[in-house]
């Protein structure tokens, strides 16, 4: 099973810059050369390797033409020729419906909607100089800028093969570039819809901030229907320039028959502050790899996640806090709620390079077990090669204590509601770290939908 995704080598177009096609070809050979992870690989310890068999998935051949009465849309494929426009499996989900379903924040600086990697809607009120466009366009119009930041880091958390597949196959996604000293007040909101049965998508998000710039990007990943299995191999590449602030929020709410590999790579330059937040409520199996590289003194990275796993869902999260520079700070807080037969894996590593003195690095994973049959695995790790460091990690797994339930029941709340209340409170602690109320409400909305579906299934 050397190539679990039987997609043919992606065909590239003459419209694309030469560096990009070269990178894609190189990535394709790398993908073929790297062996598929197998049992016993330390990076895949406890993982369900069977989930990596992607036989039967294929690229969507396009989206149906946008209707006359639909909202404004862009069709990048017409300019780049990456994707032929052939309506097929998504017939049941016309883009207009999906655009209508793409509700999010009230105040946004820009809102973009993708259906199977095709941009179908875009509106923005961004300050001049800010670039916020589909990757397909950016590759043509801002080739040099994209090249300077596109997939610069080495994937070291186990998914090198899938990162290579992503690089070889990526056709679209987002490119956001905020120039020096520009601060964007409201978030940029991006919706990704996965439509049709056995469709694979490779959305890529590249966000670059200049000196003292500020931006917040919120991405939502959803399936058009509840029953069609999909596969998303997504990559987000975040590069925070000196003194800048870059916040990234990913909400993964695919249907429960889909699978996801989500790779995040963040670099923080001197005095930059980055926050990465991932919410997992969807997918049958999701693998998140998150790497923060602290490249300058005063850099700060907050890595946050809430995962609510129910039924037979499996979430496999691997993180890496890489302190290259002295005097940087990183703090990780991952919380998992486990219902039914769900399973979670958390494997985190704080790695302090030689010479990265005066590092402050923290890592906490908390698992709340809500059933007798769930399984939580934690592997918090430290690798310290420097002195004058403050590092700690903590991991706990426990259930709600009877006393807490009793306390709430004594106040007239039934035990099911009490458990949900505590579970909600447990997760909200992480959200509060985002410090943005409208965004918190948006995330809570997704969480509550999940709690409702769990409550419904259990009644």
């Amino acid at each position, binding site marked *: 099973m050397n190539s679990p995704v039987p997609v043919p080598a992606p065909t590239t177009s003459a419209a694309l810059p030469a560096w990009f096609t070269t990178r894609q070809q190189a990535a394709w050979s790398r993908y073929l050369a790297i062996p598929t992870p197998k049992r016993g690989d330390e990076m895949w310890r406890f993982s369900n390797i069977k989930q990596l068999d992607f036989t039967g998935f294929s690229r969507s051949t396009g989206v149906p033409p946008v209707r006359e009465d639909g909202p404004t849309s862009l069709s990048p494929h017409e300019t780049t020729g990456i994707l032929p426009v052939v309506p097929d499996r998504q017939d049941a989900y016309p883009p207009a419906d999906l655009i209508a379903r793409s509700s999010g924040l009230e105040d946004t600086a820009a809102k973009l909607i993708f259906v199977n990697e095709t941009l179908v809607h875009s509106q923005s009120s961004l300050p001049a100089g800010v670039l916020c466009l589909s990757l397909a366009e950016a590759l043509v119009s801002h080739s040099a800028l994209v090249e300077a930041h596109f997939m610069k880091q080495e994937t070291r958390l186990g998914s090198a093969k899938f990162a290579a597949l992503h690089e070889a196959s990526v056709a679209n996604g987002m490119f956001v570039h905020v120039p020096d000293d520009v601060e964007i007040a409201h978030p940029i909101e991006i919706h990704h819809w996965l439509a049709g049965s056995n469709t694979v998508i490779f959305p890529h998000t590249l966000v670059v901030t200049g000196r003292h710039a500020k931006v917040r990007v919120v991405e939502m990943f959803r399936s058009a229907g509840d029953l069609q299995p999909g596969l998303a191999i997504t990559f987000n590449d975040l590069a925070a320039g000196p003194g800048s602030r870059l916040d990234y929020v990913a909400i993964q709410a695919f249907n429960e028959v889909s699978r996801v590999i989500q790779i995040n790579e963040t670099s923080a330059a001197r005095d930059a502050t980055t926050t990465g937040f991932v919410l997992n409520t969807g997918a049958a199996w999701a693998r998140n790899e998150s790497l923060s590289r602290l490249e300058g003194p005063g850099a700060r990275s907050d890595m946050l996640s809430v995962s609510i796993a129910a039924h037979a869902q499996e979430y496999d999260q691997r993180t890496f806090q890489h302190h290259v520079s002295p005097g940087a700070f990183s703090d990780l807080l991952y919380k998992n709620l486990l219902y039914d037969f769900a399973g979670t894996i958390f494997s985190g590593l704080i790695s302090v390079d030689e010479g990265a003195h005066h590092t402050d690095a923290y890592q906490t994973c908390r698992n709340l077990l809500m059933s007798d049959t769930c399984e939580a695995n934690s592997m918090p790790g430290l*690798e310290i090669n420097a002195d004058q460091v403050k590092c700690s990690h903590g*991991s706990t797994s426990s259930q709600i204590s009877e006393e807490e339930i009793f306390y709430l029941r004594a106040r007239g709340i039934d035990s099911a509601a009490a458990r949900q209340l505590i579970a909600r409170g447990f997760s909200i602690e992480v959200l509060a770290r985002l410090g943005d109320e409208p965004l918190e409400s948006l995330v809570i909305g997704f969480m509550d939908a999940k709690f409702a579906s769990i409550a419904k299934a259990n009644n």
Partner: protein
Amino acid sequence: MSYQPSATLDAETHDAISVDRSKGDFTFPERNKLDAGRGLTDKTVDYICDVKNDPPWLREFRHKALKVFLEKPLPTHWASKDLENINFDEIRYYLSDGEKPKRSWDDVPDDIKRTFDRLGIPQQERAFLAGVEAQYDSEAAYSNVKEELTKQGVIFVNSTEGLHQHEEVFRPWFGKVIPTSDNKFSALNSAVFSGGSFIYIPKGVKLKQPLQAYFRINSENFGQFERTLIIADEGAELMYMEGCTAPKFETATLHSAVVELVALKGAKIQYVTVQNWSSNVFNLVTKRGLAMEDAEVRWIDCNIGSRLTIKYPGVIMKGRRARGEVISIALANTGQHQDTGAKMIHAADETTSNIVSKSISVGKGRATYRGQVHIPKHLKGCKNNTECDALLINTNSRTDTYPAITVKGNRHSTQHEASVSQVSEDMLFYLMQRGLNQGQAMSLAVNGFINDLVREFPMEYSVELKRLIDLEMEGSVG
């Protein structure tokens, strides 16, 4: 028995780990009858079986183990690549007593002698530790202990004697806690083991005095491939101590022991190890205890010596309310890698385990904590607590922590915490202001760091441990 370390080592590491071999040189008499030769083949195993007069089942067991050993790859996908520097063909796997290296006191390197002085080791023990005498003559002290033990029905013999004279007790548990195929080095031990202790404590017997390996006479105490099996019958209690704080001047470069403990209902076993092999030794040890209902197994483990130690004492809690505990101190100086930790396998309801690990990295030393806590499905009310703290002394010291915690199901609770820190400038300043030099201040701080664990060791060990830490800290700062 030694071999040239690989040329891949840099000069500094080489200096740090090498001992002055010219002083300790010795020769093996060429007597084929007693020499298993170098390297490991079926013939070596047969040779050992013949010399030790093993019963047929054991011969078969050893041959099977050899096969497993040869089949299993080195665990370098997670463990140190330094393992690749072991040349298994250059090692002598069995030396009978007649061939024990002979060495005179004058041959013992000066630094070892100095350490003995500083630790206040009695002259007689020094000779034994330095390998000048084949065994420590403790007849007087031992005979009293022995008499009392015999009266209580305690069996305390070496493993060969155990399997020959007490097969009915020995065999049912032998290789049951640690199966041959557990890992490459347990398989190696199973194929070539000799020496080690066999202890059986009858029902309800609670030993007041700890048992020590070097009380036993005519034994191959600190063998290369020792095999220890301790069985505490229902309600029995004992403390067993192996090793000592004094450096053991060792010319064998591979030490791979297997220790199995069985605590039946309500029994308590405490196993204390102080390892201070010389810094050319690969110390690859498998230790595991089985705790039945209401039983308790405690590993108290201290690793100071060796070039590379890989050791994760474990407890399988098989009976309700069983308890497992690992208390571990590791000190890694330049050229050393202490890869230690603990394994806690919960296999019954309401079992509890506790791991407390403290490590100190000095110079270019590397200390690693690796742990596994496993709570499977269908159990309830299991608890685990893990704490690991690391102290870094110098700028190029290194420490790693790799725990793995699996919790399935409900009503369990686990917590894991780890921290890494260094001795603060303020603390050193405060102490130096009161007239201590930097080295003394550092040792005081380090002793404070591990103080709560050192107290778990028997009195004489903890005193020696403190002195030893003073010694290791010397010259580490400034």
